[in-house]
């Protein structure tokens, strides 16, 4: 009996530090998460622009320029469907800026689908100036049929002779 009591006492004594350690770990975790939250909190650096916010809330485009809006003059004369070729100063692959512009134009002209390969019967040429546009037209086998501004216009594929 006495031996059993002593064994139990020893066991309890051994268990106590383990329990205290577990409690310490438990409370420590909660506390460290609280500290993490307070450390991570930082005030927002971005100001909310009141005019832009008003535009958004009123449901108007306002000061926001639609993606690819540079192509607005073309939209009126293009059909509402189909696939067209879209040529720029150079092939866009590997050039992030040209790719972004191409995708923005796709966004603007949707549901018309843009192909950056010179394979469709007609399309848009959108270059910086006439010289680059002429060079691109001759290397891809197209001809300008309706010029919109310098280096830009509607093109069709040349007939093969």
């Amino acid at each position, binding site marked *: 009996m006495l031996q059993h009591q002593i064994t139990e006492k020893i066991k309890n004594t051994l268990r106590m530090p383990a*329990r205290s350690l*577990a*409690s310490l*770990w*438990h*409370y420590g*975790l*909660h506390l460290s*998460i*609280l500290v*993490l*939250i307070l450390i*991570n*909190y930082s*005030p*927002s650096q*971005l*100001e*909310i*622009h009141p005019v*832009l*916010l008003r*535009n*958004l*809330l009123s*449901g108007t*485009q306002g000061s*926001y320029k639609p*993606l690819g809006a540079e192509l607005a003059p073309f939209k009126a004369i293009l059909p*509402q*469907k189909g*696939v067209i070729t879209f040529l720029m100063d150079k092939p866009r692959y590997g050039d992030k800026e040209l790719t*972004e512009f*191409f*995708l*923005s134009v*796709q*966004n603007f002209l*949707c*549901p018309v*689908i*843009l*192909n*950056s390969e010179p394979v469709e019967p007609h399309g848009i040429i959108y270059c910086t100036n006439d010289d680059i546009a002429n060079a691109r037209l001759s290397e891809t086998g197209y001809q300008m049929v309706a010029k919109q501004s310098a280096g830009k216009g509607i093109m069709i594929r040349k007939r093969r002779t």
Partner: protein
Amino acid sequence: MILLALVIPATLGFLSTRFLLRKSPLPYSWLLSSVMAFPLGLGICSLVLFWSYVIANGFGRSLTLLVLIVLFIIAMGLQIKASWGRPSPISLHPGPVLGNIFNALNPKTNSRTSLFRNWAITLAALLFVYLFLHYTYYFIGKVVWNIYGGWDARYFWNLKAKFYFRVPAEWKGMFNPILDWAHPDYPLLLPGAVAWGWITAGKELLIWPPIVDYAFFCSLCFLVIWYLSAHVSWWNGLLAGCYLLTVHMFRFWSTTQYADIPLTFFFTSAAILLLLAIRSKDKHLFLFSGLLAGLSAWTKNEGLFFVLWLGLTGAAILLRSRSMTRQEKKSMILYFLGGLLVPLATVVFAKVVLGVKGGEYIGSGRNLSDYIRLLFFDAAKTKFIALCFLVFKSTYSQWQGLWILFLAGLLAGNRDRFKDYRWIFAVLIAGIELGYFVILHVSPNDPKLQVETSLMRLMMHGAALAMVFTFEAIGPLFRAQRKSDPVLSPG
């Protein structure tokens, strides 16, 4: 009209959840129904929209509106019928958190322990409210300056919504393989949700995609709070909510209009409901979990992997269970599959019938031996991907120590952390991560580019689940005595 775009999905989602939970006595089910309202409602809208376009093509818009208004009326009618003659379920009781605040301010509260507990929960609730308002300010600031969202949102998710909205008869253009960057075989929950708002408003409202984003993020945040508050303690729930609001990855990606936050929501909710379904052996919860898992597959391709993992985990548990009859097990599996059916069939239809060419996996022209070679015979690639996983997970500036806490919870958390099927969360997280490990091997894109552009974002899909597991594994603090749930011991 934007009000209608909000009210119809929110009501449909809320009432569908009430209907699915009508026989499931979950704690604070009103909070769960509110959490589910928008994500589930937008998921339903997106599915209805897709099938309306498939059936009616050019008249898809009108059919969508008609079907959703009819569904809305039916749901309202069923709700009125169900509550006719019954006492109102809305109670004047202040609720658990408000109750704690009242008690903390009440000088007559006797017990010193409960007073301390009430004060702690009150402070946690106030901290959460403050951080939530702060997050909202941050969100508006980000959105106002970057209304078109990130790259994928501009040129992929919202572009597809434009195909739905602009000329309905030409909507199938979104599956054209010539269309650059638009992944023709991709699921369409998010484009459908965006197009739904535009169709209802009658124009491409710039503010609608951010509203969808915000709704999904808030739902995710309150889902975590609901689960932990209902099954661990209000302190743990509110602390997790506060923590989630300060983790940079969640904050940043919730403003970009990407599909990753919606996917995180569906992963987390489907896993939580599977756990609760298995614990309670409630077939309606299996149905609900299946539905949410199906919606995850309708959100992103990654959801298909998740469906597989979730299904296998659930099936393995059911098959090993000795407390259920064979008939019960069969019925639960059928309910889970029933929930999955519509969203998963929609994904399969979109992939097999519409987006058949130019997909990254289906229609890519690669065969099984190509995949095996990519997966098992490129040691340098495997080493690179494994190192990236390790480095990215431990990046403090992005995760604020979340994955380290998860590891601490996993290895040295509460002694009951794997009891009552809590291990499901850890297994699912492992499954999700393993899935991405595999995808990075077999992806047709350059692995460096893939890692740079998407790995960190992919890790977010299991992060909310990791947070739930961690906050359960660290054990409850300031828990009120309640008999209903499986209880975690504090140490």
